């Protein structure tokens, strides 16, 4: 039981921020992760061992987020996200400004992605889950995850907010 507590304690920050990225609401994310962790505790006998444990945890977190998302329709409603104002300050002013601009553009572009593409992107590029674990988390086949990630990247590249960033990357 102590192991489980320690594991949850360790996993909480990233799970919380993943939920934040999906829900774009710290309060909702906190509730969703709390609900997810309670479910994990309740079904702790079903937690798989080894590498599958993290995927399973994110599956529960994503399900909690999606339940909240589909129930409240919070994503589309939130346009006054204040996350950019709360970005931590960095030592390099130019880098800080660049990251802030990227975050703002990506946030807007992400907001325009449909839910079924947004969640894999967050799990892949923030939570760092491999495709097979994302497949477990969203309960789809790895091939589906792959195609969704590809489609998400394509849409993000074509998004007007990120087009400039995509061009910059190519130029570099």
């Amino acid at each position, binding site marked *: 039981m102590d192991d489980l507590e320690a594991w949850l304690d360790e996993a909480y920050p990233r799970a919380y921020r993943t939920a934040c990225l999906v829900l774009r609401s710290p309060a909702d994310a906190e509730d969703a992760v709390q609900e997810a962790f*309670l479910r994990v505790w309740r*079904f702790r006998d*079903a937690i798989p061992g080894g590498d599958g444990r993290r995927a399973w945890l994110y599956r529960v977190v994503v399900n909690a987020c999606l339940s909240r998302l589909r129930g409240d329709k919070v994503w589309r409603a939130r346009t006054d996200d204040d996350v950019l104002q709360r970005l931590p300050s960095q030592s390099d002013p130019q880098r800080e400004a660049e*990251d802030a601009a990227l975050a703002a553009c990506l946030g807007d572009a992400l907001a325009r992605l449909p839910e079924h593409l947004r969640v894999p992107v967050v799990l892949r*590029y923030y939570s760092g889950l491999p495709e097979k674990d994302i497949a477990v988390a969203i309960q789809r086949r790895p091939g589906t995850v792959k195609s969704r990630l590809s489609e998400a990247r394509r849409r993000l590249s074509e998004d007007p907010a990120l087009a400039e960033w*995509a061009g910059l*990357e190519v130029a570099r």
Partner: protein
Amino acid sequence: MITDELLERGLGEIADGYDVPPQAIDDILDQLRPADAVAPDDTDVETSHRRWPPSRHTWLLSSAAAVVVLILVAFIVGGGHNDGSPSAGGKVTNTVSDRENAAGVGADGSVKMMSSSPGSAPGGGTVSVPAAAPPRPAVTRDQFASGGGSTPSVVPSDSLTKIVQTGSMDLQVDKGKVDGAVVALTKQARVLGGFVASSQSVGGDEPSASVTLRVPNSSFPDLLAQARGLGKVLSVDTKSADVTAQYVDLQARLHALGLTKSTYLNILTKASTIGEILSVQQRVNDIQTQIDQLQGQLKVLTDQTSYATLTVSIDQKASIKSVVVHHQSGLGKAVNRSVSRFVHGVEAIIGVIGPIVLVLLLVALGWLLAKVGYRIVRRQMV
């Protein structure tokens, strides 16, 4: 195309903007701990959190119990029917062989061709007989067992009951007495108020004959008794079929058609145009055709229920020249009995396998449903 690095950087930047609430995880863990504090021991915790969803074993046991209950209910409901009752089927078959009377019927119910004549089968040995009289399955032996003219098991209980009685008999007469037996049977049928429906004779070294006799139903047992007296009876097969329902149905349909016909005739008298007359007349003709058909069927049925039919096949003893007589020792009998019981055992096992397979299939189905249900519940809960 946007790169993975850019996405990771951007998402990390956005995520970093969200401050992790410092007390949130502690609050969650605090919510979890009281469950352990309240629980007296680990076993109780396990029990409490296992109440729902139930464990896989619980699902399996519940499904198995449900299947067993269903099977029991099916057996109980199905056990209420007695298909073997003569009254239920309305049809009874009586097959008896004189050999059965002498030596009994084998356990498998088949009629053995065994001669009781000391001359032909010394020592009461078994005689194999050519296909002159094929064995028939014995159903009941309570009738005709004494050789007398006892009535069939199905007897009209009242005047409305309509019974069709038929029978066949294999008769063996002394050499040169086949024709005499045919004559005697014909005469006997006429005495009983019946007639000869058909008769066939084959001459030559081994003459034989086949006579189909029709006598009033009430005289059928007498005819059987008389036929028995003409020679050695190799086998007797009688059948009784209750056709009361069919008879009543035909009568009802005839009555209804008669009423309909009367109605149309009434309409016909009121018809004014040629078209109307032709149309109604056509209907009347159709109904009349149906009435004729039903009346024909009723007539046939009446004839069948009024007169019983007995077909007698007559052979003479010379026809069993080629019989092979072999004595069977006690050891041989024991071997035969053993083989017979072995076959019966196999039959019994096969008979039991069917329900077992059914039960296994149902259990497998229940297990599958429980598994799917368990997964669905788990998916919904998680």
